């Protein structure tokens, strides 16, 4: 029997059946593989943090080295507290909500370091990265950047080692106390806090510059150490005019902090 493949009924049925089959197939594949994929993503994120610390993630067992060398913390109210929730693989929304993760770690060279996650936008999609800073929080020890969908061979080169290694040893802050570390046009880096961008990928390079600046600025309280001297800076807004005054807790906020604890 020959089917009339041009009839309306056949066309509709064919489309409906095709959609149902494809939908089930995709849903099945996605749910069956989700667990393995999530484990891979978490492992890869840990590998990215270790890369920023100077480890070669291809040559080590990422999970073991991470467990041994890295500690996940949250920076809140002027101090680091160990984070005991599930390991996060994206940090954009957390930073926006004020949950500032800082990883304390030892680098491949045995130095004490803090790793800060940063998130930004490139030309076509999201960018993210991890910046390792030294113990005194003023110099970069290493970086890792990656992207969702930058152009292969151009913007995608921000994920290459030569680009990321340029940041090593760069000071974070300028003389005015603001984040001065930036990416400039390829070949134009003169100042000590400038690094070369990627040739032919100006918009992605600008995206990295903005990501580094915004990302580090979000952690300014942690990095500048001012918070350590002034744990109540946020609460006694305006009441403390100078760092010296801040060093001692503001009288007004004693009650507030006890409220929070209750």
């Amino acid at each position, binding site marked *: 029997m020959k089917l009339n493949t041009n009839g309306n009924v056949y066309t509709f049925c064919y489309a409906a059946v095709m959609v149902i089959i*494809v939908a089930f197939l995709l849903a099945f594949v996605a749910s069956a*593989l989700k667990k393995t994929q999530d484990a891979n993503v978490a492992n890869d994120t840990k590998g990215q943090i270790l890369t920023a610390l100077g480890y070669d993630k291809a040559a080590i067992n990422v999970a073991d080295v991470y467990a041994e060398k890295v500690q996940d913390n949250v920076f809140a109210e002027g101090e680091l507290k160990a984070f005991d929730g599930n390991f996060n693989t994206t940090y954009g929304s957390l930073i926006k909500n004020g949950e500032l993760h800082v990883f304390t770690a030892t680098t491949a060279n045995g130095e004490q370091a803090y790793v800060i996650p940063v998130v930004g936008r490139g030309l076509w999609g999201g960018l993210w990265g991890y910046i390792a800073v030294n113990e005194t929080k003023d110099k970069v020890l290493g970086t890792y950047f990656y992207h969702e969908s*930058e152009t292969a061979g151009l913007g995608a080169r921000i994920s290459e080692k030569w680009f990321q290694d340029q940041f090593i040893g760069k000071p974070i802050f300028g003389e005015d106390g603001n984040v001065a570390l930036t990416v400039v046009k390829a070949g134009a880096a003169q100042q000590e806090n400038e690094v070369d961008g990627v040739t032919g990928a100006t918009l992605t390079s600008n995206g990295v510059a903005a990501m580094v600046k915004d990302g580090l600025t979000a952690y300014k309280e942690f990095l500048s150490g001012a918070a350590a001297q002034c744990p109540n800076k946020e609460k006694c807004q305006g009441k403390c005019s100078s760092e010296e005054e801040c060093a001692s807790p503001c009288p007004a906020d004693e009650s507030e902090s006890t409220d929070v604890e209750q």
Partner: protein
Amino acid sequence: MSKLFSEENKAAFSNPLNLNNPIAVQVLGICSALAVTSQLKPAIVMGLSVTVITAFSNVIISLIRKSIPNRIRIIVQLVVVATLVTIVSQLLKAYVYDVSVQLSVYVGLIITNCILMGRLEAFAMQNKPWPSLLDGIGNGLGYAWVLVVVGFVRELFGFGTLFGYNVIPQFVYDAGYTNNGMMVMPAMSLIIVGCVIWAHRAYNKES
């Protein structure tokens, strides 16, 4: 066996490599040829990915070609390609994560590649699965070699490297040679593709 490799089937495989090359003759898939050829490695990865996906989607469409309603055939082809690419990328993500990270940039470019749709419409809809498979592989490789040629020229003159390794010795730079920044721009790849097409047609003048 002899039937599997008949003259006709061989032609299905070898024609797209040369006389009916998807880029040089049919001028299909140009957009992706411009996007990923600034270096050699992404050009090769993209070429191989397209080869695999073209081959498999050709076979699937060829298997169901008699049942596809004529009026929605393009939609059916698109669904097959998109499903295939999505499932493959999901599998890669679960079992070979590093490869999937490398390929993530290309997934969108593969689905929208004109060569895929072109081959499904022009070949797989009329032919049996085996010739369709050969045709898919042939077209993918025909596309790949043009990408590799363009990638080779652009990386060599644009960056002075091949596969990321420096090949132009330092004394050439000392003598005043500089990398050509123009090569890195997409516009230059259009010009190089044009040169490839020119050379290819000059060589195959009689046919």
